[in-house]
């Protein structure tokens, strides 16, 4: 239902006592409105005891899905103030992370770093309260681990072993080609070596995407 929002016409000019009456009356009306809220429910949120739920799209402190990230620098380039810095060493398809820092002395939470990410791995989180006593702590490392994980080491070892096997097979094929000429064997051996790698899902695109 629409409340009537039309404006009443201005009353005629009043003299001294009229003014006094106006002042008292309008103040009383205002007091009445305020008084009405005495019994209504308070809107105050008792932070930190109760916290408002942050929304789905809230742009808070970033978080990084490190296992997906390919260190492509797209977010750093999209940042208007260059507050993202990343550094990693490549071991074939695996990345050895050294740092991925976000400088909250500069960051303005504009979300422009999130859009260009090819792997959709950097997000704005729901955390917002970042208070420190030392300014240097605001340069935050988003990495949850540094260096190589055990899984990665295993995968690197596997990949290297495969590479070695492939190289050996190729060498053998070449030797065979020199000797008799069975090229078909060598091609088949190489294909089988590539297809058997099941752990390459995340790092597959690393070869096609632009690198650091």
């Amino acid at each position, binding site marked *: 239902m629409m409340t009537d*929002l039309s404006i009443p016409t201005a009353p005629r000019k009043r003299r001294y006592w009229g003014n006094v009456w*106006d002042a008292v009356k*309008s103040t009383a*009306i*205002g007091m009445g409105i*305020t008084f009405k809220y005495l019994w209504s429910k308070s809107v105050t949120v008792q932070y930190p005891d109760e916290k408002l739920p942050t929304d789905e*799209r809230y742009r808070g402190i970033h978080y990084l899905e490190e296992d997906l990230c390919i260190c492509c620098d797209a977010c750093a380039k999209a*940042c208007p103030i260059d507050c993202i810095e990343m550094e990693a060493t490549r071991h074939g398809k695996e990345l050895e992370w050294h740092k991925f820092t976000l400088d909250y002395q500069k960051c303005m939470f504009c979300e*422009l770093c999130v859009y260009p990410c090819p792997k959709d791995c950097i997000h704005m989180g729901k955390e917002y309260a970042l208070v420190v006593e030392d300014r240097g702590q605001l340069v935050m490392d988003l990495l949850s681990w540094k260096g190589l994980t055990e899984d990665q080491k295993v995968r690197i070892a596997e990949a290297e072993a495969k590479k070695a096997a492939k190289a050996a097979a190729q060498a053998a094929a070449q030797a065979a080609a020199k000797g008799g000429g069975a090229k078909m064997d060598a091609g088949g051996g190489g294909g089988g070596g590539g297809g058997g790698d099941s752990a390459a899902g995340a790092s597959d695109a690393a070869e096609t995407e632009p690198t650091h």
Partner: protein
Amino acid sequence: MERAAPSPGLLQPGQREIELDVRTQDVEINMGPQHPSTHGVLRVLIRADGEIVTAAQSHLGYLHRCAEKIGENVDWLQYLPYTDRYDYLAAMNNNLGYSLAVEKLLGIEVPPRGQYLRTLIVELNRIASHLIAFGTYGLDIGAFTPFFYAFRERELLLDIFEKICGARLTYSFIRPGGVFNDAPPGWLQHVEDFCRQFEKKWPEYWDLLVENKIFIERTANVGIIPRDLAIAWGCTGPMLRGSGVDWDLRRDQPYLVYDRLEFKVITGVGYRGTVGDCFDRNYVRMLEMVESLKMVRQCLDQMPEGEVSHPDVGLIIRPAPGEAYVGIENPRGELGHYVVSDGSKIARRVRVRAPSFCNLSLVEHIMPGTMLADAVAIIGATDIVIGETDR
């Protein structure tokens, strides 16, 4: 302080002693940059003879943040977050002004749903901005309570903004080519709930502050800006309309979907004083909230389905060479963006024509002759945002 103050008791030869009731002398008062009743870090140097202001001079630049230089150094899209920060009370409108200027160079039209969503959210932001203007204006002239009422409703609006774009103040939501995200499910219902709630609250503000006799005495017939003066000094927005000029870019040079919406342009009518006084400027803002609410409702009714952004505009924008000026109706007046492109991904020039800047330039000229206490009322009624005057 050219005039030396006469020192009591020391008579020059041949001088006759005159007893004065009140001995006044010129004093220079620095209002600001840190002052409770200037909106931000404005410094107004006031020379007063007793209680009467004889001259005023504004000093700006205490919040100069080089927005225009930054515009020449970052990408077209990367500049968008900076537009939030010059008029931080109406960041959506700033995003819109910049986006429209870039779209003019891109030569693209945003899909209807995008247009409606923009209109809707811009009007909601106008309400939020006018709420602050209303609350802090009360605060300026001594009424503390309206501030709490204004902030209570504003928090509801900020919840709405937070749901759609994830930020409370610096939204970066409207972008060149459309908007970043479509409304989440249930969001439009949320807006409708707000409309219903706000409609009940608005008459309270009217009774609480605008009809209050003390408020009327402080603002009516104070700081009168005649119609011609307002036009000549390039005032826009509520400042111009408060002086009785019937001018609103939303109606007269319609952008977005304003030509499909029905609304009234509010002008000052001298409701409690003379046309163009501080009361009228506040009056225009108060009633504009209602008009904005009407527009929001119409947008909700007419909201079409479909895409919200133009598909061709990506993250790297390369507009055609050329220059474009787009002025939109901000809560404070005409916000103009003048952009010059050379066809590359970085702008040649981003010029911001800030409404507060132009409105404020007149203030120092209407202040002389008023009482010192009225200076606060005049600055408050101008509703400036220093982030915008200084950029």
